[in-house]
Every structure is written in C-alpha cells, then in structure tokens.
C-alpha cells in the first residue's frame, strides 16, 4: 500500500444498526483508497474496514455473515440500492454516502 491517499466518505447506520456502532448514526470517514491487495477500495473493503476499525460492539456477526453484509441489512449507495451499483464490488468514490439500514428490528 504505497498509495496513502484516502477517500472521504459519509457512512450512515439506521434501522437499529446504529446500536452496534456506539449509537452514532453518521460517520465521516477517510477510507484508504486501496484495499489490502492494492485494488481500488470497494464496498466489500469498506465493510471490512468498518468491522475492524469503527465497530466496537463484539457481535460482528450481527453486521457481517459469511463474509458479506448480513442478509436483511439494506445497503444504499448514494440512496440507490447497492444491487443497482454492483453490490460489494462497487468502487467507493470521493464524497459517497453509503448507508446501512437494518430491516431486522422491531415492527
């Protein structure tokens, strides 16, 4: 990782997911521009990054299951469903707003 440039983004949690992130809904983050292997940072990398560096709650499995965002958690990339944007392969851009919304909490 020679490239120290970071990508400034906003990450938001809602639908109860914020409970896992110190009850803070919005985070302004600087995401390393490249992942562990030097590839451009994508959402999969962001999720790992969040898990390792932002999430203090030990119950990681409530956010990640089997290497990806747990089913039942919606991911919105600049308001659009991540399935329209390539899911976790989407390459994070400067100024992106990425939102994780749980559908699993109380009705």
């Amino acid at each position, binding site marked *: 990782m020679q490239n120290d440039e970071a990508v400034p983004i906003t990450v938001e949690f*809602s*639908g*109860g997911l914020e*409970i896992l992130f110190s009850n803070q809904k919005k985070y302004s983050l600087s995401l390393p521009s490249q992942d562990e292997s030097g590839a451009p940072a994508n959402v999969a990398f962001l999720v790992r990054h969040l898990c390792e560096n932002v999430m203090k709650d030990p*119950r990681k*499995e*409530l956010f990640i*299951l089997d290497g990806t965002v*747990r*089913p*039942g958690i*919606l991911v*919105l990339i600049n*308001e*659009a*469903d991540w*399935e*329209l*944007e*390539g899911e976790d392969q*989407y390459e994070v851009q400067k100024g992106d707003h990425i939102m994780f*919304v*749980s*559908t*699993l*909490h*109380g*009705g």
Partner: protein
Amino acid sequence: MPPSPCALCKVNRALILRPKDHSKLCKTCFITVFETEIHHTIIANALFHRGEKIAIGASGGKDSTVLASVLKTLNERYDYGLDLILLSIDEGIKGYRDDSLETVKRNAEQYGMELTILGYEELYGWTMDQVVAQVGKKGNCTYCGVFRRQALDRGASRLEVKHVVTGHNADDVAETVLMNLLRGDLPRLSRTTSIITSTPSASANPSSNTNIKRSKPLKYAYEKEIVLYAHHKNLDYFSTECIYSPEAFRGSARALIKNLERVRPSAILDVVRSGEDMAKLVPGSDEGCGGVCSSSVPAAEEEEGGCGSAQGRSSGGEMASVEAQLRQNDAASEHNLETEITTAGGNGSGKQHGRHDSGAAPLSTAGKKGKKGFTPRKANKQVMGRCKKCGYLSSQDVCKACVLLEGLNKARPKNSIEVAYEVQDVSVNSIKDELKKTSIGAD
C-alpha cells in the same frame, strides 16, 4: 455501472430494485407503486367498508408506522371514508417502550390520529419488567407475545372498535408459513395465511362478545420495501432490539427467509402464495378457501407468538428444535415406531383422539418414547371454544394468557428460583391433564 433510468417514468434515476419483479424504479414511482399495490390488496380483499372505525396496532416500529402513513394517504386519496385511530400497547419494559411510545405520540400528531395507549399492568396486573423479574429473561417473550395478542383485542373492544389492522408484512407471513409447514401444523397454516381473521373480544362478560376483525393490509409487502418506503418518505419510526430478547438470528426461520431472499428475491412472495394454496387444500380448514377469498377465519390466540418488538418472529432456537424433531421422527420410522401412536393407557385400540396441542408444546412433548410420531394431522378440527376465565377465543378450556397469569400469580410470593420451575410445570401439567382427558374420552 452507468445509472439506470426508472422503468416507469424513464426520466429519473432508478434507486430501487423491486424484489418481486426486479423492476428498477425511481423514488417517486416507487412510492406511488407501493401505495397503489396496498390499495389493490385492500380492494381485492374488501378489507374495509365506508364509515368503519379502524384501530391501527401501532408500536412506533417501521411496519406499523408505514401502515399508518399509507392508510392515511389512501384513505384520503381514494376516499375510503375510514375513521383511523392508533392503538398502542405498553408492555411495561422500562426504557424500551418509553422511546417507542414517544414515536407513536409524534406519529399521532403527524397523521392527525387519535391515540390510545394501554398497559399490560392495567390489563393483566403485570408489567413485562415484573414478569421478567419473576421468570427470568429466558422464555419471557412467550408471555409478552401471548399478552400482546389479547391486548389489542381488549383495547379495541374498550374503544368500541371492531377492526384492528396490524403491520404484518410478507416476510412475517412467509416465516410463519415455513414454521407451520415444518411443524406439520396445517390448521394453523390456514389461519396464519388468511388476510382477515376474527376473534371474539375478550370482554369481561363473554355473553356480550363482539367479533373483533383483524387484518393485515401489508401482507404482500416486502419488509425490504417497507423499510425503503419509510426511508424515502422520511417517516419517523423507532427501531431497537427488544432488550429482553437476545438476538438469535442464525438458524432462525427469519434467517432462512432472508437468505432465500438474497438468492432469489421473489421467494418470499412465492412462499406466501404457496402457503395460501396449501391452506386451500387443508381439509376441514375453517373456510373452504382457507380464508383467502376474503371471508374471515377465526384466529386462535396462538397465532402470533414472540416478542413485542418483533411481531411473531421466530428466534434461533426454533429451527433447531424443528430439525431435532424431524431427526427424531426419522429415527422413529427406522425403528417402525412411527405408527405406534398409543394412548396414555396403552390398551387396545391405539387411537388417539388427542387434539394436537397447538402451542409450542408439540415440540417439547412429542418424541418422548416415540409416543407421538410426526404423522400429518388429519383433518381434526381444532375446536375453538372460549376461555372459562376470560372468555377469550381459545382451543383450550383456559386460554394461554390465563394459564400464564395463573402461574405468575401463584408464584408471586415465592422466590424466583422456585418460580421459574413452577411456571414451566404449570404448562406441562396442563398438557398431561389434556392427554389424560383425551385418552379417557377415547376409551
């Protein structure tokens, strides 16, 4: 990926990928389509009639908040002529309902609806905090669910409202379809898939019963779309884990549903539709059509269990116990035990007229010494009577709520360790009594 345009207006950028048909919609078109589909559900099933007063079971959570918002919108747009009010149940969980009830109060203002909040304490003499102090955190969701189920009906009859709508969504229905299918509980499958159910109100005086109608206008709405609707319409809703319900997601029927959805999003509605189709085939189901063709089906008290925060949603243990049950049955059939359905007396005819107990009981009692095989239920009609104590519709002499209350009240002066024991014993004993009774009847 280049942004795709909306499939409907062809102008705006698509933000939503619909799970049911993969169509890509913009925010505005999505909101319109979502509302219109619920309107069609309401019309096709003749859920309401003009002038009807309707209580929306409101928890402050996403489903009931979306339901209230959509019903208000549709009532105005299509001139249903409904009188909509909000009815909330306060289980008495400190710190949990406080915030969600604040949300409901704001909703009442935002939607211009009258709000009634009814507490477990005034209904049952017990808050959930007190129940938990008594029985511990394990198993308290059963209490919460059983009490909650009646609470809405009691509240409605107090308000002289004959129709309660709840926020059950397609994911909820699909989940109960799977659970009932795995348990082989076909009568209940038919009840839980119908969009309208009715229960006599739990009035103090059983002779003055008025039927309380229950319906689920969001029955065909994906949980995902409900959350997206709330998000894109900026609705004010509250979400938290029920602090008494340890999040046990892995291995729950809910997890299965969500995994299916990820592989094939249409699976959820497919399960709901299949559930309806199977319900139609259940002989002796309460209606020939399983209630799908709009007439109402009696709802039993056991229809919705679970914790108040998650309406009738299963917890992790359930799938495991169903699996264990199935394995036991396999083992039993290998040893030719499955046909050996004996009476308690064990003499002669070997026919058990036992009505199948409808709660969680079959899972815990079945399989003991291969007594009860997993034979599919015959068209044994579950006889719906009334609870001797409170008059609530029940397949037992005494309804679940009353049984639970009896246990709680009996245990009240004792210390908590004995108590937990005692309460469990009550239900086991009553099941034993039930079995004894039925075997006597069979002789």
